[in-house]
């Protein structure tokens, strides 16, 4: 509430600051704008930045640290018997206070001291918000007044504003790098915790996957086993089926569209592939699970084969359909990048169109097509919804496409959906799988993008 008010006040102050800076700059030279170093609007932006930016930084800093700060203050006021525990009970205490403060009732009868602490937490939080409002306004007005006093015909307002904007632009372009670092760190950090419990070699080369951990040591099957080979094999099987569908169809579709189809036909065919590419994966998943899988099973049964109702074939086929437009648009690009002179040379020697394509265009485009296929493979490996909905959950180590297999992404999704404690090996194993997935797809993408780039340079 107070935060919204503060944001509105800040927005108002920056607008006022802009007007103030502008009019003061004009007034300072008596209307002869030529005598200003920078145009009046830059003076306006200068004051507006001084009004808005410091307060906004304070706001961001406060938002990041307030909860922690208030909690520390509350905890320091609690008796030792509650606070002096190990890290786990302290975490529990924190969660209790937070729950009570937010009005969430837990099953247990709360300790009166904890209730008092929760009330204190709410009070301090409110106090903090109010003081932020007051301090934020003071900072903003202070900045505004300071900047307004500095307005002067010789003030290099443009340079200062532009430098600030430039710094902002650099920071924005760093967000992408930060995201990558965030992904790597979060995966590594959690995966290391997982590998502290499970030997990495057992994980990478074990052949038995059953992540269910028992609550007590004496239960049957109490030790979860984390051999990920069945998952890798399942992923490869489904990816293989998908590629068997997507590569021939996608490649031939690209060839047909770029070499054979008339422009009129192409304006019809291109949108069809684009629509296929734009359909959300969850829709493909629904289609695979409710239409394709029963269809495959019925066909198999009528042929006397025993087909699982979650067969790898159904999931793989639908995934292949999803990837067709991906393969075809990438191959379309590389086929079009082959210079016309190569084709003309081939026609001049009397080759037919298909001979030109098979013997000249495709070999010339081969590196690009291989790269496209690699990108498609990485896409298939990382695809989650189709396999989560249509592939099985049991980790079978099989090469039979009619059996149910499970994949890396399916396991990540099922291990992490629902409420779990964050530090059981079962939950952490998802991060181990995520790390493997990230490394594999990153390698494929890096190599493929490199090849595409190299290849483009060759013909440019």
């Amino acid at each position, binding site marked *: 509430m107070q935060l919204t008010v503060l944001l509105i006040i800040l927005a108002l102050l920056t607008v006022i600051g802009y007007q103030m800076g502008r009019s003061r700059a004009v007034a300072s030279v008596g209307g002869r704008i030529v005598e200003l170093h920078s145009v009046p609007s830059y003076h306006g932006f200068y004051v507006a930045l001084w009004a808005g930016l410091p307060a906004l930084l304070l706001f961001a800093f406060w938002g990041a640290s307030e909860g922690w700060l208030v909690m520390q203050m509350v905890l320091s006021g609690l008796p030792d018997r509650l606070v002096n525990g190990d890290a786990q009970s302290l975490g529990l205490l924190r969660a209790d206070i937070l729950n009570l403060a937010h009005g969430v009732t837990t099953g247990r009868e709360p300790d009166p001291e904890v209730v008092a602490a929760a009330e204190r937490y709410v009070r301090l939080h409110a106090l903090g918000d109010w003081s932020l409002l007051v301090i934020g306004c003071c900072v903003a007005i202070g900045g505004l007044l300071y900047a307004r006093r500095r307005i002067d015909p010789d003030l290099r307002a443009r340079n200062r504003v532009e430098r600030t904007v*430039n710094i902002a632009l650099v920071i924005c372009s760093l967000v992408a790098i930060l995201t990558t670092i965030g*992904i790597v760190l979060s995966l590594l950090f959690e995966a290391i915790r997982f590998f502290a419990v499970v030997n990495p070699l057992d994980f990478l080369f074990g052949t038995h996957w059953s992540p269910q951990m028992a609550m007590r040591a004496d239960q049957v099957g109490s030790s979860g086993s984390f051999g990920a080979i069945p998952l890798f094999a399942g992923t490869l099987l489904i990816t293989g089926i998908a590629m068997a569908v997507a590569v021939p169809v996608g490649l031939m579709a690209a060839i047909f569209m770029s070499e054979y189809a008339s422009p009129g036909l192409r304006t019809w065919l291109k949108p*069809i592939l684009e629509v296929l590419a734009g359909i959300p994966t969850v829709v493909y998943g629904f289609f695979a699970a409710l239409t394709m899988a029963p269809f495959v099973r019925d066909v198999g049964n009528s042929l006397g084969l025993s087909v699982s109702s979650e067969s790898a074939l159904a999931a793989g086929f639908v995934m292949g359909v999803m990837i067709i437009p991906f393969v075809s648009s990438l191959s379309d690009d590389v086929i079009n990048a082959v210079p016309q002179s190569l084709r003309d040379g081939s026609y001049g020697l009397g080759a*037919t169109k298909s*001979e030109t394509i098979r013997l000249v265009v495709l070999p010339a485009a081969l590196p690009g097509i291989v790269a496209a296929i690699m990108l498609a493979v990485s896409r298939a490996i990382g695809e*989650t919804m189709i396999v*989560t909905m249509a592939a099985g959950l049991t980790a079978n180590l099989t090469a039979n496409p009619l059996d149910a297999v499970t994949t890396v992404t399916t396991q990540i999704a099922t291990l*992490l959906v629902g409420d779990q404690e964050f530090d059981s090996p079962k939950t952490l194993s998802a991060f181990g799988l995520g790390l493997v997935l990230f490394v594999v797809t990153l390698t494929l993408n890096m190599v493929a993008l490199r090849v595409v780039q190299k290849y483009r340079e060759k013909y440019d």
Partner: protein
Amino acid sequence: MSVAVTKSRYQSEEFSARLRRRYAAERRFRIAGMVAVGIASLMLVVLLGSIISKGYTAFWQAQIRLEVTLDKQQVEERNYTALLRQALYAQVPTATDRATRRSLNDLLSSGAPYELEAKVNANPSLVGTTQTVWVRADDEIDQFMKGFIRRDVPESERRLNDVKIAAIDALVANGSIRSTFNTTLFTAGDSREPEQAGILGAVVGSALTLVVTMLLSVPIGIAAAVYLEEFAPKNRWTDLIEVNINNLAAVPSIIFGLLGLAVFLGFFGLPRSAPLVGGLVMALMTLPVIIIASRVALKAVPPSIREAALGVGASPLQTVTHHVLPLALPGILTGTIIGMARALGETAPLLMIGMVAFIVDIPGGLTDSATAIPVQIYMWADSPERAFTERTSAAIMILLAFLILMNGLAVFLRKKFERRW
């Protein structure tokens, strides 16, 4: 003197045979291409066809007409269930013994008493009168009326027993069952009962998520693109950023979900299931898409524009903000809308951050628990009831309608503002 007509080798038997073979190969190749395109088109038709044929029935819902006597005492005790049941027994002639009556109780949706209560609360003068009300039927009655539960299967394998079917026949005979447009689907949140389940909660959740995504990824994405395209020096550092952005665009979406789980939920302690977190994750995911599209749009603005602006004394920043950006804006906008459409259809990262919970209420803020349309589809697809299957298909149609709308807007913008230099 006769001229010896020697056949040229281009007319020899072997040659024409070879030529025939080559032309046949040419035809085969061409047909293979057509088949490939045909398969792709066929799959699209099958996919959309199966969804529409499965789902169009979800837009209708069976209702039962009841003559409810709003007895004053029962109303005061809020015993609307009993009122509705009394009215139902009166309509069905076979409802004489207890077993039949108990069986009939399932005909009405468990939400029907609340419907009636809302009606009475809105107009208290109804108390004491007899009113004709149409209330929602239970999903199995609905499915039966739509013909998905067949009466020729043996009773033990059917979800409706003979008593209920007889009662339905009686109701149909006196015109007490009708099929109306299913408004619940558009106005309600999720529910365990198919006839009370709606998509509105998920639509609002998706909208909130997309707002966060847009507010974060569009300004940051455009700023990053402007920096990389217009200001950045060409050195190893910017090369690294570029390679990094291209790779980020190809990282599987579920990895972004893991990032959100570990960083936003684990490290910053933001609430689970909140559109705020969903939007943050989606923003990181769409950022590369927007940066790449914006860079393409900026690159398409010819250098002469920049040179002219710089020539009349504009600073580099003024050149960009006054001239280059406005000219590139349609392209940037198109890329942004396509990125948003992708974010709207994305499911996997939202599963990771807990937006997959069963939430009845329609979310009112960025930190409320919420779900999104694709996640709702995922959850409904898992439900065993036949009625949820058709609602899943209907939800897919609604999602596709939103996507078509967004992509249509993008195409329109591209067509309208496209500029060839």
